[in-house]
């Protein structure tokens, strides 16, 4: 079993050291101290000049003039150096140097995933209580500790396979949509922790599924009265290809019955090469909400499909889909994945929160509510639709 808090959530040392001299120790004494402890390659730099860029590979330490602080660069013998520094009378503190990150990027914390922070799900007063949310995917690990006590309505539509997730994709998606409130040291990763979770296994343990099984699952969820249906699945379509009438009809039927089907837009783009692939099926159906993926900087994900086809092939909304931490079948327990598959259940969970907030928001009204209350992003609608999906009352910057 993995530790409850992944290593990536703890501060990451660079291997270097930060040294703080005691007050009153002048610059010459600081330099001599560094020389005594680590050798002659320590260099001094003025904190008001731009010569810090001149640090070269031979430099072992950087003494910042007038600040009383020195940086010992990463070296194999850092523990021995640290011991010598700690023994020096002139030094007040020696601590590891840690990697730091730009604050304009969301990060996972010990409390919650970055996706729940960015969308406001973490601070929303709503939890999906009373809302039926269905995830159609590769099933779920019903014995996972985070779902063991959860009442889950489940059914497999895959021949000769029960709902047990032998792939991992479905458990991850279900976790993002409706994973539990945090327990112990596990960060919260589920957008709607109190939703009534329905799991339809429509993809096999190999990760793919027949259309007949997927359509059967969609109708099962609609007939069960699920207000929200999450589908992190699809297929690529050709440029200029329109939506298939069967999925268009199911999407329309769902809206008519008060259900909202939300689907992943697809991962077939290679944006670094200028290629934007069209939104795949069934997300390209006009009555199915297509979800694009954004990263921690709220930029469109490299792989995320775009609205380049007509007749429903547009992106409708965007959500976190890079570096997404969620549940994984035992014994792995948790893992990080990326894809519009990860963005889709974020929107599904947020839709459940919005549906809980107003019983009048069902079907098309829920669609309209979701796309109306987004955080606008400085990106083309082709890539992110209306913008970043937000939780009701979550306090995220809209």
């Amino acid at each position, binding site marked *: 079993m993995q530790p409850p808090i992944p290593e990536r959530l703890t501060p990451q040392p660079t291997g270097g050291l930060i040294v703080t001299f005691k007050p009153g120790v002048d610059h010459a004494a600081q330099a001599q101290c560094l020389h005594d402890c680590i050798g002659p390659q320590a260099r001094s730099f003025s904190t008001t000049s731009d010569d810090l860029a001149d640090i070269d590979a031979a430099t072992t330490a950087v003494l910042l003039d007038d600040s009383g602080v020195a940086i010992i660069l990463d070296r194999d013998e850092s523990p021995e150096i640290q011991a010598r520094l700690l023994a020096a009378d002139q030094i007040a503190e020696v601590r590891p140097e840690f990697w730091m990150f730009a604050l304009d990027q969301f990060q996972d914390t010990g409390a919650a995933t970055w996706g729940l922070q960015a969308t406001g799900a973490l601070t929303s007063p709503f939890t999906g209580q009373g809302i039926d949310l269905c995830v159609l*995917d*590769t099933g779920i690990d019903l014995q996972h500790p985070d779902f063991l006590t959860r009442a889950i309505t489940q059914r497999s539509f895959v021949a000769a396979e029960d709902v047990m997730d032998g*792939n991992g*994709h*479905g458990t991850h998606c279900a976790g993002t949509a409706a994973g539990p409130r945090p327990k112990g040291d596990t960060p919260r990763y589920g957008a709607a922790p109190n939703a009534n979770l329905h799991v339809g296994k429509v*993809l096999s343990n190999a*990760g*793919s*599924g*027949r*259309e*007949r099984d*997927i*359509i*059967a699952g969609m*109708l099962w969820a609609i007939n069960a009265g699920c207000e929200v249906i999450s589908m*992190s*699945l*699809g*297929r690529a379509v050709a440029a200029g290809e329109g939506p*298939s*009438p*069967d999925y268009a*009809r*199911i999407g329309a*039927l769902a809206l008519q019955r008060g259900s909202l089907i939300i689907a*992943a837009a*697809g*991962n077939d783009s290679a944006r670094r090469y200028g290629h934007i692939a069209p939104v*795949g*099926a*069934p997300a390209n159906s006009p009555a199915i909400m297509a979800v694009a993926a954004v990263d921690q900087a709220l930029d469109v994900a490299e792989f995320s499909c775009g609205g380049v086809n007509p007749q429903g092939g547009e992106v409708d909304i965007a959500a976190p889909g890079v570096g997404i931490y969620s549940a994984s079948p035992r014994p792995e327990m948790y893992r990080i994945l990326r*894809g*519009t*598959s990860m963005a*889709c259940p974020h929107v599904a969970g947020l839709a459940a929160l919005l549906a809980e907030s107003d019983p009048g928001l069902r079907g098309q009204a829920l669609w309209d509510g979701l796309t109306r209350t987004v955080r606008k992003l400085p990106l083309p609608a082709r890539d992110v639709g209306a913008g970043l999906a937000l939780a009701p009352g979550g306090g995220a910057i809209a």
Partner: protein
Amino acid sequence: MSEVQIKIILDAAHIAETAQYCQSFAAMGLSIDSSFPEIGVIFGAGDPALLVQMNAMDGVAEAVVEGQLHGL
């Protein structure tokens, strides 16, 4: 020729006649697997030549080889 899995989508005006179309397709040699009268969609297995015949029928929007979808 080996059988293929076939998806038939009826046009919107014939959705209510899904059961009758199932009978017609079965008579043509299609082994019906499942049908969804709410949306006018029928799945079955049969000779690939059926695709041409079915696509020529009145009331059929499209008959295609059934596809697969994948986790994204």
